[in-house]
């Protein structure tokens, strides 16, 4: 009978080649994944650098066509207004819904809520826009008749944000270890106390990330704004009714790039760079905040 032997030690050619091939694919995938970010920054900078200056972000647009002179302060301010309005609606509602889904996760109502919320995640933003138009903006038929206005757009964007915040909040809470929750329950904590003192603090980073994801999504939305706000080159007098529109960076880029003017195309790309930088700064800001909140965090 032949003696049973282990194969010789060392990697076979097949395994060596497989290592190299799989390693290369991983590296390539990484490059493909990060290239767009670098490309966005490079293209926006290269095409928009002539318009970049401090005054570009601190002055209102002027000249004719409007924007040929001056900066994009209207767009920056307007985008911030829209974020605040959208967050005022979506953060309390979305976080509350996420808490509800986590706490009541096995009930039928929670199942239905989760299903509907996930369906809303998939609704194209143009549909949110036209529905927002009929509910908030149009002056004919039923509806709130707010006109093209910051409030109409802010609330539409807020409704887009709610399912994002809900989903991420629930997931962040689910990631809190069960043993941790049981520790508090065994001390005689109520469900509310467990939520307030343990689950939310442990999940706060995840919840913050969810809110940020929603904000970033809203910052880039253009289609809903076409139907509910459009655009304003100046300062809105109010957030409702005539001249209730606010400026908005995404709309500003969209409009400038459609103008037959080389100077406005440059400004559009400069504005694109500003928007990208705002997004990156917000992202880094929330990461710093979450590091700060990890004073007592678990190791590893």
């Amino acid at each position: 009978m032949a003696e049973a032997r282990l194969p010789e030690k060392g990697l076979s050619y097949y395994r060596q080649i497989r290592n190299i091939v799989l390693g290369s694919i991983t590296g390539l995938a990484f490059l493909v994944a990060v290239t767009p970010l670098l490309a966005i920054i490079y293209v926006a900078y290269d095409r928009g650098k002539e318009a970049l200056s401090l005054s570009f972000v601190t002055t209102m647009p002027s000249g004719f066509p409007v924007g040929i002179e001056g900066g994009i302060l209207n767009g920056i301010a307007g985008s911030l207004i829209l974020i605040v309005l959208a967050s005022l609606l979506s953060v309390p509602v979305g976080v509350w819904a996420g808490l509800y889904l986590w706490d009541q996760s096995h009930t039928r109502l929670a199942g239905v809520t989760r299903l509907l919320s996930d369906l809303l995640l998939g609704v194209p933003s143009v549909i949110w826009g036209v529905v927002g138009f009929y509910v908030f903006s149009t002056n004919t038929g039923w509806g709130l008749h707010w006109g093209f206005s910051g409030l109409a757009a802010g609330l539409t964007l807020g409704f887009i944000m709610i399912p994002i915040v809900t989903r991420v909040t629930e997931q962040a809470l689910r990631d809190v270890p069960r043993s941790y929750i049981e520790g508090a329950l065994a001390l005689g904590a109520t469900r509310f106390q467990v939520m307030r003192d343990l689950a939310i603090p442990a999940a706060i980073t995840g919840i913050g990330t969810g809110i940020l994801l929603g904000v970033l999504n809203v910052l880039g939305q253009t289609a809903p704004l076409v139907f509910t706000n459009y655009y304003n080159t100046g300062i809105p007098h109010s957030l409702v009714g005539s001249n209730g529109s606010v400026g908005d960076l995404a709309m500003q880029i969209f409009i400038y790039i459609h103008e037959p003017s080389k100077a406005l195309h440059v400004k559009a790309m400069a504005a694109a760079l500003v928007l990208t930088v705002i997004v990156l700064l917000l992202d880094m800001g929330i990461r710093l905040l979450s590091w700060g909140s990890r004073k007592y965090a678990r190791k590893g």
Partner: protein
Amino acid sequence: MEQSAPMSGNLKIETKGFSAFYGKTQALRNVNFSVPEKKITAMIGPSGCGKSTFLRSLNRMNDFIPGFRMEGSALLDGEEIYGAAVNPVLLRQRVGMVFQKPNPFQMSIFENVAYGLRIQGVKSSSLVSDIVEKSLRAAALWDEVKDRLKGSAFALSGGQQQRLCIARALAVEPEVILLDEPASALDPISTARIEELMQDLKDRYTIAIVTHNMQQAARVSDYTAFFLDGTLVEVGETTKIFTNPDDSRTEDYITGRFG
């Protein structure tokens, strides 16, 4: 089946015909069992025998598990644990629990122990400090942490974390402490400290411990109960169970023939 020798002293917890179900799976069958006051009662048995389910039923921690259902009766000082008028939150303040894996909160050492008081609305900071110190001393942890009370609980070793969890449970002054394999994730030295601690605590508390480790049950407990397939096979004084059990299945288990 003949029950073993009656337990001496007051019975703190008593179950009669207690059965438990997870959905359609029956985890406990008709358990008649008592936990005597201010003694240590150990529950042993192979994995899946129902001992943890039984322990967790005693402070209604299973209420949170979807599909959990019980039948029969479980009494704490003669009152129904599952009675309609019982608030499980108040029940758990009387029947505390320490878990298999140390689960300190993401807070300072001090706040971990103080948490049970804070949720009960204890406001006086001097009272809270006193109880925190007393509880940490009772859990034999005070000397090791008194200079770092504001530090993170996660900086402690596994054994220290488990003693912190015991201190946390003691702070709310429970009458009963349920220990669910409290030393199974610890090294032998930490385990020995927890076992010493249990001896110190039994003068004041009724202790029920689930353990996988038969030597541990033999070392620490006054009474031992052997569970198998969701039934209570035998319960009695620990020395008797380990030297002269009535049931041959108990003997097979403690002599290592299965499990």
